[in-house]
């Protein structure tokens, strides 16, 4: 088991899983809409499958968010 944190909250995951798998585990509704920071570094979307997380890693899931005015 690896102890990691996702958006500041502790989480335990099996061994070393990929960021793509972690996104699934966290039930992200639209995986293409999340930006991921691993220990303070942004991970390229193309590397989500190949980048693995390990014990002690801190991840931030950042989501696109709209705004106030639909048609400025």
């Amino acid at each position, binding site marked *: 088991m690896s102890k990691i944190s996702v958006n500041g909250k502790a989480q335990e995951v099996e061994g070393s899983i990929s960021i793509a798998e972690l996104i699934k585990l966290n039930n992200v509704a639209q995986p293409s*809409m999340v930006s991921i*920071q691993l220990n303070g570094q942004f991970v390229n979307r193309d590397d989500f499958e190949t980048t693995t997380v390990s014990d002690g890693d801190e991840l931030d899931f950042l989501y*696109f968010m*709209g*705004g*106030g*005015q639909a048609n400025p």
Partner: protein
Amino acid sequence: MDFTEEQIQRYSRHILLQDVGVEGQEKISNGKVLIVGAGGLGAPIALYLAAAGVGTIGIIDGDVVDLSNLQRQVIHFTPDINKPKVISAKEKINLINPDVKVVTYHKLLTAENALEIINDYDFIVDGTDNFPVKFLINDACVIAKKPFSHGGILRFDGQTLTYVPGSACYRCLFHSPPPPNAVPTCSQAGVLGAIAGMLGTIQAAEVLKYLTGVGDLLTNRLLTFNAKTMEFRTVHTKHNDNCPVCGNHPTVTGLVDYEQAVCDIESHRKSK
């Protein structure tokens, strides 16, 4: 700048602040700020910047006031329905504070006009809800080396960051616009009205901090909150070397109008 007796009284609560004082108020009064979008975020931003006495406030918005706007766009009143939002906003700003010069642009911000318009301002505030314009504001400000505040709200959530040249830009975090309609806008998914005020006033405070030089701006940080839990979180970020506009090998070197703008506007107009 010499303040009149009336101005000293009007701005007394700023002048009393040790960090602001007469000097800081002068900086605010000399400030030129462009607000993109006179909607949910633009409304509180414009109201507070007007009250604070920002010298010149530019507002760009191509829309007219709709009944469904009034739940959160607090600068527009019921009699303003069908009036251009920039005119409605200008009228309120002038009523709050006749010192403020208001410049209105009843049009869309586009790749063609963005650099020319932002050139006249010290600080740009993003009060839009569609991603093409958010990326356009980011790219234009990075290219023109202008500071700006990004703001986004949806349902019960809000997020904001401040950019100054050299700090992490919006694209450092969010590489490129999402596919059209992949991310819902407020007009599709809804938004709790009060969070527009929560986020907009944070953006307005950032503008005043920038103009006066007081405190630490929300640079290299993304502030997010959720109104259901009322938890706020700050994610520390940094400049991304792979950023397409401010990274080591930029691929975005000019401005583009992304397709989604048209889709959004079409669906918005049809829904009326």
